[in-house]
């Protein structure tokens, strides 16, 4: 496990400040932190809350692989990826990614890469709750 990569899945609220602290280093002048939050509408429907579930051990493996790829591609010095599971209210953060680099361009690009890859690869699912029922997002 690389000391400059921190990944986690938790039922507890996520903290943007914890992400910033996890990647802060004296040789890095740029830290980019992204928070994905629960939105009140999706595909024209009002959303009241979301339940996230994960295949945790595989998702953590994916997070580590995603972190390693982004570190290499953008020369990042430290990476953080955290995802929450369980029932989340509107506005709460479901995911927080952070990337630290000597300069800002790589921090922005690296952080973008982290969240895009997490959304594409991590075995995590969400159920959106509406007035009456719920739906699995992306159920095809």
């Amino acid at each position, binding site marked *: 496990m690389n000391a400059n990569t921190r990944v986690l899945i938790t039922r507890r609220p996520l903290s943007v400040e914890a992400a910033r602290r996890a990647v802060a280093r004296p040789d890095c002048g740029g830290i980019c932190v992204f928070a994905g939050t629960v939105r009140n509408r999706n595909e024209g429907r009002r959303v009241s809350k979301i339940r996230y*579930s994960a*295949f945790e051990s595989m998702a953590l493996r994916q997070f580590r692989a995603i972190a390693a790829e982004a570190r290499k591609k953008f020369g990042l010095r430290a990476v953080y990826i955290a995802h929450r599971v369980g029932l989340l209210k509107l506005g709460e953060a479901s995911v927080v990614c952070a990337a630290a680099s000597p300069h800002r361009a790589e921090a922005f690009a690296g952080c973008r890469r982290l969240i895009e890859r997490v959304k594409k690869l991590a075995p*995590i*699912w969400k159920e959106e709750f509406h007035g009456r029922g719920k739906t699995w997002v992306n*159920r*095809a």
Partner: protein
Amino acid sequence: MKVKVRLFGFLAEEAGKREISVEAETAGDALEAAKSVISIPRSVRIAVNEEYAPSKRALRSGDVVSLIPPVAGG
């Protein structure tokens, strides 16, 4: 050989269980065999031992297959 197949998301909900056991030689066989228990859309991906794997992946004794519905993290 007998293989353990783990179900997640709507697959687990609809099957009413998180795990089934099937006869399979490849990852793709395991998915096909699981269709006797639950309807599986084409969008479902396969993982073997917690890594995504192609259908033709040959299984070994003790391998665990997981059926991964379309992901929606973030």
